């Protein structure tokens, strides 16, 4: 079992939520064993669509807790994330930031070029917590994958939040999920050692820069009505009795003999 899955499992366990009511939507291919271990439903969505897929899932069955885990920066799916934030869709988004900050890493990690990382050489990354915050997320945090206890705690807190939570996890290459290889572990250690916890800092200040330590921690937590809260309140206000408060869209099952 990879460290991340164990962290996730701990986070879920602490939250007290029945794993059977949790769905993970992700564009990262998890292994069946990991999902079995977590005891959740898992949807390997197409690239970038984990949040949008999760939106459909959550709205259809609001009793579910949905955890979109999105990888490879937030390239394809960035739009879905910011809009989910705006709507305050009740999702616990885990952003795996595998973008290799070459300039930062250059200092100590000698061998950083994995297959996907060659591209990042001349680009600057997003400040994900700041972006999430600017579009309305109710919970933002950033940890490295080695901050297992802190990360698990953040997952627990985020699962208990009503609204869009965004937890950024700094972890190198995608292989991390299949077990860490040598290059990645050296990079991960580098992240770990070069990070500094600053809880509650304004997300604007958490930009990852090569001339300073990586700022990690829980940055914001606030209360805002969720999409469905707003929806039900507004329609009740306007439609009164004619409105059937929305509680889900699960279809009736086929009965015996039908």
């Amino acid at each position, binding site marked *: 079992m990879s460290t991340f899955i164990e962290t996730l499992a701990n986070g879920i366990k602490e939250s007290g939520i029945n794993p059977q009511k949790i769905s993970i939507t992700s564009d990262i*291919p998890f292994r069946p064993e990991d999902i079995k271990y977590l005891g959740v439903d898992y949807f*390997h969505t*197409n*690239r*970038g669509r984990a949040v949008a897929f999760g939106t459909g899932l959550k709205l259809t069955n609001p009793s579910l807790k949905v955890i979109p885990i999105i990888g490879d920066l937030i*390239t*394809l799916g*960035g739009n879905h994330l910011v809009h989910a934030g705006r709507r305050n869709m009740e999702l616990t988004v885990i952003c795996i930031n595998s973008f290799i900050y070459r300039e930062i890493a250059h200092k100590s990690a000698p061998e950083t070029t994995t*297959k*996907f990382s*060659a*591209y990042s050489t001349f*680009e600057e990354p997003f400040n994900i917590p700041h972006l999430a915050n600017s579009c309305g997320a109710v919970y933002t945090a950033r940890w490295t994958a080695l901050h297992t206890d802190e990360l698990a705690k953040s997952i627990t807190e985020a699962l208990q939040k009503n609204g869009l939570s965004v937890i950024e996890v700094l972890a190198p290459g995608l292989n991390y999920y299949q077990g860490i290889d040598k290059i990645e572990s050296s990079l991960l250690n580098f992240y770990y050692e070069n990070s500094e916890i600053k809880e509650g800092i304004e997300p604007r200040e958490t930009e990852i820069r090569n001339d300073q330590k990586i700022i990690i921690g829980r940055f914001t937590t606030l209360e805002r009505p969720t999409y469905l809260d707003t929806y039900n309140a507004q329609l009740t206000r306007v439609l009164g009795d004619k409105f059937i408060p929305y509680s889900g869209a699960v279809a009736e099952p086929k009965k015996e003999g039908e």
Partner: protein
Amino acid sequence: MKPPKDSLKTGTHQLSGSQACVEGAISAGCRFLGMYPIEPAIEISNYFLERAKTLDAVYVQMEDEISALAAVLGASWTGRRSMTVTSGPGLSLMMEHMGLGVMLETPCVIVDVQRVGPGHGIPTAPAQGDIFQSRWGSHGDYEIIGLAPSTVQEIFDFMIKAFNFSEHYRVPVVVLTDGYLVNLKSDVTIPRAEDIKLEPRRYYDGPQEKYLPFKRDEDLIPRLVDIGAGYKFHVTGLTHDERGYPIMNEECQEFNVHPLVRKIRNYAEKIVRFQELATEDAEIIVIAYGSSFSAAKQAQQKAREQGIKTGLLKLDTIWPFAENRVRELSRKAKAFVAVEMNYGQLVYEIQRCSQGNANTIFVTHGEKGVENSDDILNAIIQASRENSKKEGIIEYAPK
């Protein structure tokens, strides 16, 4: 027109399909790659980036394939030869801009390294499942040109062809290869600059104030100018007239869109390319393209050894489809054996053009390995034993 000498790696080198693709593009004058990484097309973009270091070439990894092709179209209008590389899921995302490319008649090349689909499919396994998609995947009516190289050398050669076609016909050209071929290593001969013929861009050369971006030449193709050259032209994805101004009626729709189809269909015979092997006396004709070619060739030869008069038609261009040649062959042959790494796509075209003259047998190829020719050979044998005309497509079922 000739490529600039210093960009060429003239000589014979051992190259992977990915490298051959990039060398071909660079030889064809391509200086812009907009892409988004996807298996199994990553090597191509990595190698382009490698080569871009020493050339005046632009490389950009966009946020997704939608924007990758959008950027390529924009770049092409500045006068740079531009391309993108992708694989199935990415090609699906590019579909809307394929239509824009067609509508703006923008020269560009899309390399599709096919993998098993639909959905994620099997990212690392080669396939030929995007054949129909490349032709029909965007909404509305249009035609494109599709090329399918079969060897590493052909990847190099076809990239030059692709750019030449796209400049000449002002249409997106799709190069349909797959994960097997781009990873294959083989000797590739890169000619000297003076031996490579490049189609120059069809620039407008009349008086500036008379420029009409969509006024067609005799051969239905309009002339281009670059952004920044002072023409102040307008182009739109809406149905437009010669000036490029939108006009929303059925007459203008006819005026605008019919030529998009015609400019390819009318010149299909000039575009279509194929290679034939022993088709003169053949009863059974194997039709194959892309990576399936070498296994098909093997099977064809083995069948000949067994005394079955077998020929081979290898399609270099998939689109436009080699209609006339298949029709001609259908009158001579007893059966076609269509070989594809999918569950039946181009075979529908073959069946259509066989006009009920020849049987059409379909073989799914590749699951036992791209090199494996057993199923093809067995299908040939099955076809040779069948003496009556059968309706519809006969699916070869492996024993």
